[in-house]
């Protein structure tokens, strides 16, 4: 088990002929995931690392059964690519692209929402299910096992890079991850922390969830409410980065686009207070993740499915 992706995922890469997409395709195939097709308008008939390229997603869907798409196109074309994926029956879309205009983001997220299509991102480095050796996006690069080994911990991160670092810390503690998800650093994203918690709650393999948070948005407050309402009962461990930004003049962006404080909105200290009230383990120091995981999960050797 895991959430959202597994060995049955049938993946298409929209924009597969791009430099980044082509490299990610190579790494993903080497990892063992099944990319069935790629789409780049005007390049139909070509191949990328042995994967057939189609001009349209419609043509790709006619030749293959596809349910998952990774959209590697420049910001200006993201909205249309999402519309194309939704129109062709894709059920899960991951958007790595950064700097998607807000106007386009609200449009394509609304379109997907209405069609019941889940979106991860924009500005996501990817997601990974190590037990099934399936990943979407650049996550893990060419050395996936360094950070991502199978185990009982779910990871949700607002930072792409820290998705890897958190998962590596989980491994260092002696465990592994069920699924690690980089949800994207933008203010407007398809799936928030609260949106993913019920999936981890329902996943029998996941025994605890670690979240990496930042200033800005009200995702942590919403997650805390969701826990208090009984929607998530497993242990939640949270690290909220960017405490120093509370001492800076408000309205300044530090880090990702969503990382901005306005009044009390977005303050790490208030997020920490909310999560603590909901019973979450809020880390003062990032390295405390290791002892906290051990405290929550018991000794690594006793955990079935952990990296050991």
């Amino acid at each position, binding site marked *: 088990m895991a959430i959202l992706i597994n060995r049955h995922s049938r993946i298409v890469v929209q924009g597969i002929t791009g430099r980044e997409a082509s490299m990610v395709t190579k790494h993903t195939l080497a990892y063992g995931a099944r990319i069935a097709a790629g789409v780049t308008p005007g390049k139909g008939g070509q191949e990328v690392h042995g994967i057939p390229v189609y001009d349209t997603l419609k043509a790709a869907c006619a030749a293959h059964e596809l349910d998952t798409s990774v959209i590697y196109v420049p910001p200006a074309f993201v909205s249309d690519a999402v519309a194309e994926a939704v129109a062709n029956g894709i059920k899960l879309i991951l958007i790595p692209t950064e700097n998607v205009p807000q106007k386009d983001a609200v449009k394509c997220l609304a379109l997907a929402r209405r069609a019941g299509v889940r979106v991860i991102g924009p500005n996501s480095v990817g997601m990974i299910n190590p037990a099934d050796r399936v990943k979407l996006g650049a996550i893990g690069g060419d050395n996936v096992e360094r950070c991502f080994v199978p185990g009982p911990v779910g990871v949700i991160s607002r930072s792409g890079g820290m998705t890897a670092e958190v998962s590596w810390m989980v491994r260092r503690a002696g465990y592994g991850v069920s699924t690690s998800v980089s949800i994207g650093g933008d*203010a407007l994203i398809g799936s928030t922390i609260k949106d993913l918690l019920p999936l981890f709650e329902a996943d029998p393999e996941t025994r605890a969830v670690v979240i990496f948070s930042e200033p800005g948005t009200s995702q942590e407050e919403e997650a805390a409410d969701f826990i208090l309402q009984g929607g998530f009962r497993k242990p939640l461990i949270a690290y909220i980065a960017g405490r120093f930004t509370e001492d800076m003049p408000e309205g300044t962006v530090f880090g990702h686009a969503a990382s901005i404080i306005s009044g009390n909105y977005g303050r790490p200290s208030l997020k920490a207070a909310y999560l603590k009230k909901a019973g979450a383990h809020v880390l003062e120091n990032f390295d405390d993740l290791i002892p906290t995981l051990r405290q929550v999960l018991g000794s690594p050797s006793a955990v079935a499915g952990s990296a050991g």
Partner: protein
Amino acid sequence: MGRLLEHHAKQLLKDEGLAVPPGEIAASENEVLEIARLIGKPVVIKALVPVGRRGKAGAIRFAENPEDAVSISREMLGSSVRNFPVEQVLIEERLDIDQEWYVSITFDKNKKAPVIIASLRGGVDVEELSRSYPGEILVREVDPLSDLADYETREIFAELGVRGKLLIAAAGVLAKLYRAFQRYDAYLLEVNPLVITRDGQIMAAAAVMSVDDSAMYRQTGLTDMVQMGSERAWRPLTDLEKRMVEVNESDPYRGTARYTEMPEGDIGFMCGGGGGSLLCFDTLTALGGHPANYSEVGGNPAEEKVFGITKGILSKVGVKGLFVCHNITNNTQVDILARGIIRALEDLRVDLSTFPVVVREAGVNDAAARELFTAAGVEYYGDEVTMTEACTHMITRMQKNLADRRPG
């Protein structure tokens, strides 16, 4: 988000067919005198600075006659408002006000949709409005997949209690505001107050507009109105920051290199990505360190970009060491980071025996990075240490350095 100065925002609204008070901008007392005489009525003088809540900061004042206008502008010009120097003032005819309303349009991140916020209690800032009259504010979500329909604009003002001809006129104004919000990829458009004059006109007396910087590629007409990178500083960009924006923009499609100067500090901070930088800054600070800048370098930048930003980080006065740390990278080639950083250190002839440089870089091609950094004599760590441990090493080196420099 790039915030537009008020006269730019008002010009865009005017182009959309909205009424704004007659006015001109002035950079000197002579110009103020000329404009105020030309208007020939009591005027409003506004400092042109890209900050909010200007009224409270004394940056919006009234003058009965041209002479008063000159003496007020004398105080304003050359002063600064929330760290921004006032180089120009906007002189406008003072309106004969019957009512002051509030209208703003922005994106609601939870609803993931544009929202219109409207109230007939304008003229105070929105925070005060929501404190004092929470029951008199209307928030209306707009369907992102269809435009704001005319009937919706009427519903909004009808629900607020506007009747008759004014209802029709106000609805028309809102439709135009929403069109401007959409047309210019605005992130925020706030008209406060939206004034109803005694002769029944509706005028945008004050306007705040921020443009989504991700959309600037298709808003070329606004290029000269929006300062790129301004959302990452709480004051005008410093010369060093402007140079770093140039370094970043020189190769916009390969990697990110962002730089913000901190008021003081002695640790040159060369970290990334977005989350990793926040973590390192917090950790160094908690350990008693003082980063001289904030930075965010990631997304597999080219060597030239790394070289440029590292030089920039090292060039700030008072920097006595360099801390380089990223999360384990997914796609950033750390050997390229190494090349850029080492080149900058060599270019500036940094003496590593007196200037601590601590690096924690792991990820793509880190074996090569280890070789490069080690050969250059830099204290290098890969994934044998955590980010927190690397921060501790940096602080230890800085403290040792400080102790060594103390006489006796």
